[in-house]
């Protein structure tokens, strides 16, 4: 009995009693856990819920701290300027506001911000209709076995490493599009606003549209599989109501099935958009990875924030003052900012359109 008490109170236990007392301690421990199970669930749940938030906050905090000197020196120019000059890293070091940086360094990331938004918007414009169409085909139109094959194909595509997609985009897709597709589009677009953006030289396949297409390919699986699951949950009764009213399959899909899961599709789109905004290596391989150029037309070479981060890190370390690395950290903070803004826009859209949503779990 004495050993039991000592084990429970955590006092040292004689070695020869160890097996018995350890078991007892474990048992006590288990009893304690069982007694407090509801609290454990509550607190466990709360902690788990906080983990992503804490992780995000910490990341942003660390990045911001690291970037702080660069934020001070680069100022607002960083968001609106269009130059990316590390300066003379082997030359003289100058001080601005007490921060050391190479002579002649000047950073303006506007082309990267614009490129990030442009390529992601193109990706979404392509991916959403394709995904919703695929999901629709998977749930409504095609035979079960074919749907199974398509479904697993999408899941496999979701698992392909982005470096492979990037390589394929750079070696095969880009040249193919530049040779056979882009010139045709460019020749047939009228010279009026918006459309004129599709005219002009089509370059060699590295650029904005190729990046958008490659990104679309990468986010279609995300949006399509989520949307497919959403469609599968739409109750049959409203759809039958549409059919019985003489709507075509297309009208039932457009007016009933898709609106029924509207918020869910917007959510899936935001998920895909987040991935597109942050996608790094594939874009670095097919965009041209420029630092200070906004694409002159939709085929033009350009760069994105994420691609710049990965391509510039190496050379940034050669900056003895450490200023370029701090600038890259600032760039990363900007990317997080873009992601947050996009996320909030998504929530806003859901809130604005949500008042007509079907109630969740409407029992049919």
């Amino acid at each position, binding site marked *: 009995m004495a050993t039991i008490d000592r084990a429970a109170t955590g006092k040292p236990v004689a070695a020869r009693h160890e097996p018995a007392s350890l078991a007892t301690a474990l048992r006590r421990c288990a009893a304690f856990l069982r007694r407090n199970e509801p609290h454990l669930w509550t607190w466990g749940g709360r902690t788990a819920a906080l983990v992503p938030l804490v992780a995000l906050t910490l990341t942003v905090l660390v990045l911001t701290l690291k970037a702080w000197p660069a934020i001070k020196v680069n100022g607002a120019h960083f968001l609106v300027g269009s130059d990316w000059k590390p300066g003379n890293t082997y030359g003289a070091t100058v001080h601005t506001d007490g921060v050391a940086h190479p002579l002649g360094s000047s950073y303006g990331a506007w082309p990267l911000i614009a490129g990030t938004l442009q390529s992601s918007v193109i990706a979404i414009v392509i991916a959403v209709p394709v995904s919703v169409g695929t999901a629709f085909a998977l749930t409504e139109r095609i035979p079960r076995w074919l749907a199974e094959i398509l479904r697993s194909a999408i899941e496999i595509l979701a698992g392909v490493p982005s470096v492979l997609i990037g390589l394929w985009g750079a070696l095969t897709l880009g040249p193919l599009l530049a040779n056979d597709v882009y010139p045709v589009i460019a020749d047939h677009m009228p010279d009026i606003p918006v459309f004129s953006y599709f005219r002009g030289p089509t370059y060699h396949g590295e650029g904005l549209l190729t990046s958008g297409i490659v990104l679309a390919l990468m986010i279609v699986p995300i949006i399509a599989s989520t949307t497919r699951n959403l469609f599968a949950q739409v109750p049959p009764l*409203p759809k039958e*109501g*549409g*059919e019985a*009213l003489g709507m075509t399959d297309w009208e039932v899909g457009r007016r009933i099935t898709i609106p029924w899961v509207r918020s869910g599709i917007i959510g899936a789109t935001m998920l895909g958009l987040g991935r597109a905004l942050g996608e790094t290596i594939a874009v670095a391989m097919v965009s041209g990875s420029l630092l200070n150029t906004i694409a002159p037309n939709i085929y033009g070479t350009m760069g994105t924030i994420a691609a710049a981060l990965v391509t510039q890190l190496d050379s940034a370390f050669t900056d003895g003052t450490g200023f370029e690395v701090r600038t890259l950290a600032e760039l990363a903070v900007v990317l997080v900012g873009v992601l947050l803004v996009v996320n909030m826009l998504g929530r806003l859209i859901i809130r604005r359109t949500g008042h*007509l949503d079907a109630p969740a779990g409407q029992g049919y």
Partner: protein
Amino acid sequence: MANDGEHQATSRPIIGTTDSRSEERIDPILAALDPDRERPEHVICSQSLTLSFGQKRILDSITIEFRRGSITALIGPTGCGKTTFLRTLNRMNDKIPGFRYSGDVTLEGESIWGPSQDLLDLRRRVGMLFQRPNPFPMSIRDNVVAGVKAHRIAKGKQLDVLAEERLRQVGLWEAVKDRLNDSPFRLSGGQQQLLCLARALAVGPEVLLLDEPTSALDPISTEYIEQLLRQLTPALTLIIVTHNLGQARRISHNTMFLYEGELVEHGPTEDVFERSREERTQVYVTGRMG
């Protein structure tokens, strides 16, 4: 066309009204103008309709005719094929795996499966109201005119006029006129069902199929809908599935009794209930069976 039924419906007795109805209904001058004059007396005819899903035979050689402007109650124990029969009439069963049929169903003398029959227009002419309200995820106003838009019957300002007209017809206008752009899902169950009725009426159907339309509603809503349905005749022809025998007696002119896919008996409601020719009918209508 749905409206000209309203004043007549109130002036004639409902219960037990049978064959004499068509004679007393219209004076000679109006009769000459009646667009139905040239048309067959029976809107829908089912001729030896036999139907199966895969190996399972659901309906067995059903022959029955539905007179223009009448209400027919379709009764029978659960699983006897009432819903299946009803859904066959606007071809909602066609897509079910293993669907096979023999015999025929005609609408205005023309087979519903005929080559010149347009499926979408057939469904416009033969509307349907379901057991539970099934509003679409769009505003109340858009719900009413959803079918109208799909069939391109009207557009623009006309849609608003039409929506109001139909909502008034089902008595929902006062309740929803200030929230036409709101979600239909916040309406009560009875209101939602009325909305679905307004939606079905908006496309100008000739026949309305109703599958236990009031089984999910309270007695007051039920009574209200029953009264509405009576007002829809004789402009429309109604076929209503119901488990509520009282309802069948209250609103229908004719009754058909299905048992295990077989049409056991049909005729004027009073005859079926009071003077059943068949033992099984008698057992069912006196409540001694399922």
